[in-house]
């Protein structure tokens, strides 16, 4: 049995044919793996995630999903499109993009309705997701009235409702308070433990270790500069510094000024 979820071979992509967004990308993602993609702003992370979700396609190179090469024309075939969308879900970076319906409820059930899910099944899934994410009170509210954290939870709920095998998240914890971040992290870890593949793009290094089996570091050249296990990547401070993922921190201790690289990970490493 082929246990590969995605395989990208020498993928290149550019916007409008002249602004490169991905260069020579080679990635293999096994089903059930936790993958994270880290890199500074504009390094091509979001483009990669949209490609994995079959929204954009390589200019050159090939992308395979579940052993089959993905081509734009394949999505004209209704049964293939439906099957792929059921198996892969993407949470967009900007929840305002993802929440386009007049109410939270309509947004959450949009996916399963389009994918032919029955009314009873939708109600059953809705009940479970609302209690997991604790968003029952938001159901009849318009998305524009929600806080950033609530919007992000609803955006995640709208994708979890599809029950995809692969969950792709574009900066799921950006701008969130620590408690909501923790909540979302627990949810992702739980989803992975139940067999789902989790692919996350982030530049929040706090969360990388927990949500990654493999970390891919993207550079400003829109290519992968290093890939490896999280503890190896996170110890490579020179690499992280070179790609704007860590900064020099100055602070004062008992009248002495300390200057050191700031990774926010010391408390994890001590454990």
């Amino acid at each position, binding site marked *: 049995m082929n246990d590969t979820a995605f395989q990208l071979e020498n993928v290149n992509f550019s916007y409008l044919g002249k602004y490169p967004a991905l260069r020579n990308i080679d990635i293999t993602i096994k089903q059930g793996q936790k993958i994270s993609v880290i890199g500074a702003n504009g390094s091509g992370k979001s483009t990669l995630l*949209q490609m994995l*979700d079959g*929204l954009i396609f390589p200019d050159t190179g090939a992308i395979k999903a579940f052993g089959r090469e993905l081509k734009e024309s394949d999505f004209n075939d*209704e049964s293939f*499109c*439906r099957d792929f*969308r*059921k198996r892969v*879900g*993407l949470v*967009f970076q*900007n929840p*305002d*993009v*993802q*929440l*386009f*319906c*007049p*109410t939270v409820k*309509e947004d959450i*059930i*949009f*996916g399963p*309705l*389009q*994918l*032919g899910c029955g*009314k009873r099944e*939708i109600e059953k899934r809705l009940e479970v997701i609302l209690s997991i994410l604790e968003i029952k009170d938001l159901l*009849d509210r*318009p*998305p*524009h009235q929600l806080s950033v954290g609530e919007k992000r939870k609803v955006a995640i709920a*709208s*994708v979890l409702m*599809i029950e995809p095998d692969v969950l792709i998240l574009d900066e799921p914890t950006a701008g969130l308070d620590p408690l909501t971040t923790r909540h979302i992290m627990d949810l992702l870890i739980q989803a992975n433990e139940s067999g789902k593949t989790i692919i996350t793009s982030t530049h929040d290094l706090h969360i990388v270790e927990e949500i990654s089996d493999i970390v891919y570091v993207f550079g400003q050249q829109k290519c992968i500069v290093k890939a490896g296990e999280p503890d190896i990547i996170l110890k490579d401070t020179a690499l992280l510094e070179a790609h704007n993922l860590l900064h020099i921190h100055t602070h004062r201790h008992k009248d002495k000024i300390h200057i050191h690289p700031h990774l926010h990970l010391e408390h994890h490493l001590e454990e």
Partner: protein
Amino acid sequence: MKNNFIERSIIGALSFLKESIFAEEYAARKGFLQSLDPRVKTVTFLLFIVQVLFIKNILILFCLYALCLFLAWLSKIDLIFFLKRTWIFIPLFSLFIALPAIFSIFTPGEALFAFKIAGLKFIITRQGLSGATLFITRVVTSLSFVILLSITTKHFELLRVLRIFKIPQVFVMTTGMCYRYVYLFVEVIENTYLAIKSRVGTSLHYKKGQSIVAWNIAFLWQRSYQLNEEVYKAMLARGYRGEPVVLNDFRMKARDLAWLFFALIIIVAIFYSI
């Protein structure tokens, strides 16, 4: 920057949009009309409005207007607010349109009152006055029903009601998205304006002001274009294929049936009296 005309206009227009369109303050109250099924409410109100157009007896029109005010009171609507909302602008505008009709030049008939301005004699006729009163009462009554429906129903429910009139789902969805994103752009304009204000600090030459406004319009256009592409991708990502599927989860209650019955009795009674 001084509190100038443009600033006041922008702030005024944005706060009006937020309060009148997005607040849904009255729709959230627990009143009579708010508790009705939006489908039943819309259909009965539409029937009332159609009848208002055909009624020639001004007393029946007054009764319908009184019913409208009574429903507003039952629905916990502030009557002063409601009267302001229904009387300002459109009825006043129609009053200006109807005004010439009261004079004998346009509507000949039995003279009620005559006066002279600059040597010209004006005669107000009974037929002219009753015609104009009928016209204004029709406008006010139908407008009151429309406003009462819109302020006691949440916008998303009104959009869903459109489905029962077999309006294409794509149109309903586009309208809903338009409503959703206008709010986002209202916020963008507000924040952009505050950002300019915080950085400019002093009064600005009007030419520079014009150029900032022009750039903001261009920026907003570009932003909406980008958003359009992104939202479409988000729809595709969740299985959208050009024809949206929706869930019909309206439920009729005993109260809805009682209101429907009551409204139909009034409608039939008026029908036979006209």
